[in-house]
C-alpha cells in the first residue's frame, strides 16, 4: 500500500526542473514523517499514544492541520472526522465475504470513540489532547491533499510556473502545459478503474476522487462501500464515486469522502453553499449528479 506521488514540472532545463521536483519530494517526505500513522515517532502517533492520559505538544503545522480538520468536521456535521482512527474494525473485512450487516446498536458501538469534539486543543501551548483512552487521530482523509498542496507551494516558490502534483489520483495542477494548453485531467470510471469516463481542462485547480471501486461487499443485492460513516458505524451505500474540484488540494481531498457519506442531496447542497468548490457524484445506477456550476458536455 502507501501512496505514490507523481510530481511534474514544466521547464526547458532538465537539471533545473529536477532540483525543484526533488524539493517537492523532500517536502512530501517531511510531512510523511510528521503525520504518518506507520511510524511510532510521528506526532500523530505520539498524540494517539497519550490519548486519555495527557496533552502532547506538537508543531504549529500539525496543530493547525488538526484545527482545520475540526472545522471541516463541524462543516460536514461529523461526516469528516480525523478521530476515525478510533474505529473498531473487527466487524469489517471487505476483502472477505460478508453476508450481513451488523445491527445498528453494534455498529454504533464500534464508532463510540470517534468524536472530533473530544479533541482538546490548546493554542497557547500548542498541545493536542484526546479525551478518551483508545481514541486515535489519522490524516488519511486530508494528509495526501495537504502534502500535495505543500509540494505545489514549494515548487512554485522555487520558480516552477507550471506543474502537477498527483497524489495517487488526488491532484493539483498549476500553470499550463508546455504548448500553452491547460492541463488535461482524466477522471477515473467508477466501473472500470483502468478507464477514464470524463476529461477536464484545468489550471490552478485541485481534483480529488473518493470511490468504492474495489473494496465493497454485496449484501442482499446491495453494494456497501468500504467507507464507514463515522457517525453510525455503517458502510456507505448508493454512491460509487465523488469527485471534488476546487482550488486547494487539501480541501479537495478532505471533502470527497464526507460528501460521499452525506449522500447525494445533502452533499451537493453543502457544496452548493460553499465558494469555489464543485462536485460530481455518480450513484450506484451510474447516474451522474453535479453541483450547480458544472456543465458536462
Amino acid at each position: 500500500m502507501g501512496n505514490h506521488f507523481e510530481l511534474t514540472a514544466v521547464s526547458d532545463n532538465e537539471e533545473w526542473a529536477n532540483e525543484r521536483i526533488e524539493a517537492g519530494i523532500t517536502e512530501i517526505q517531511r510531512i510523511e514523517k510528521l503525520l504518518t500513522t506507520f511510524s511510532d515517532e510521528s506526532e500523530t502517533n505520539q498524540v494517539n499514544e497519550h490519548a486519555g492520559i495527557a496533552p502532547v505538544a506538537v508543531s504549529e503545522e500539525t496543530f493547525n492541520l488538526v484545527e482545520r480538520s475540526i472545522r471541516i468536521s463541524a462543516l460536514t456535521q461529523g461526516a469528516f472526522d480525523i478521530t476515525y482512527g478510533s474505529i473498531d474494525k473487527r466487524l469489517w473485512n471487505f476483502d472477505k465475504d460478508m453476508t450481513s450487516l451488523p445491527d445498528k446498536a453494534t455498529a454504533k458501538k464500534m464508532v463510540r470513540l470517534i468524536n472530533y469534539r473530544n479533541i482538546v486543543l490548546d493554542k497557547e501551548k500548542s498541545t493536542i489532547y484526546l479525551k478518551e483512552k483508545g481514541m486515535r487521530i489519522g490524516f488519511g482523509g486530508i494528509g495526501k491533499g495537504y502534502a500535495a498542496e505543500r509540494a505545489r507551494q514549494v515548487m512554485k516558490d522555487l520558480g516552477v510556473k507550471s506543474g502537477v502534483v498527483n497524489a495517487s489520483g488526488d491532484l493539483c495542477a498549476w500553470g499550463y502545459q508546455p504548448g500553452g494548453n491547460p492541463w488535461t485531467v482524466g477522471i477515473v470510471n467508477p466501473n472500470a478503474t483502468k478507464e477514464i469516463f470524463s476529461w477536464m481542462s484545468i489550471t490552478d485547480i485541485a481534483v480529488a476522487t473518493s470511490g468504492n471501486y474495489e473494496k465493497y461487499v454485496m449484501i442482499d443485492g446491495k453494494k456497501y462501500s468500504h467507507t464507514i460513516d463515522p457517525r453510525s458505524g455503517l458502510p456507505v451505500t448508493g454512491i460509487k464515486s465523488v469527485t471534488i474540484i476546487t482550488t486547494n488540494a487539501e480541501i479537495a481531498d478532505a471533502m470527497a469522502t464526507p460528501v460521499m457519506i452525506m449522500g447525494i442531496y445533502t452533499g451537493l447542497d453543502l457544496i452548493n453553499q460553499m465558494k469555489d468548490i464543485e462536485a460530481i457524484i455518480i450513484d450506484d445506477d451510474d447516474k451522474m449528479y453535479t453541483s450547480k456550476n458544472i456543465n458536462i458536455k
Partner: protein
Amino acid sequence: MGDRKGNFMCTTECSGNIVVTDPAEQKTGGFTFKAVVKVWL
C-alpha cells in the same frame, strides 16, 4: 513501525485520476519532467 490504523475514511488507492500531457509538447521548446515518490500518508 506503526500499523495502518484508521484507513477506513481515506481515499487511498480509491482514485485513479490521471493527467495527460499533450503529445506535441516537444515542438514548443518546453518539456515536462517527472518523478515519483512513495510515502505512507
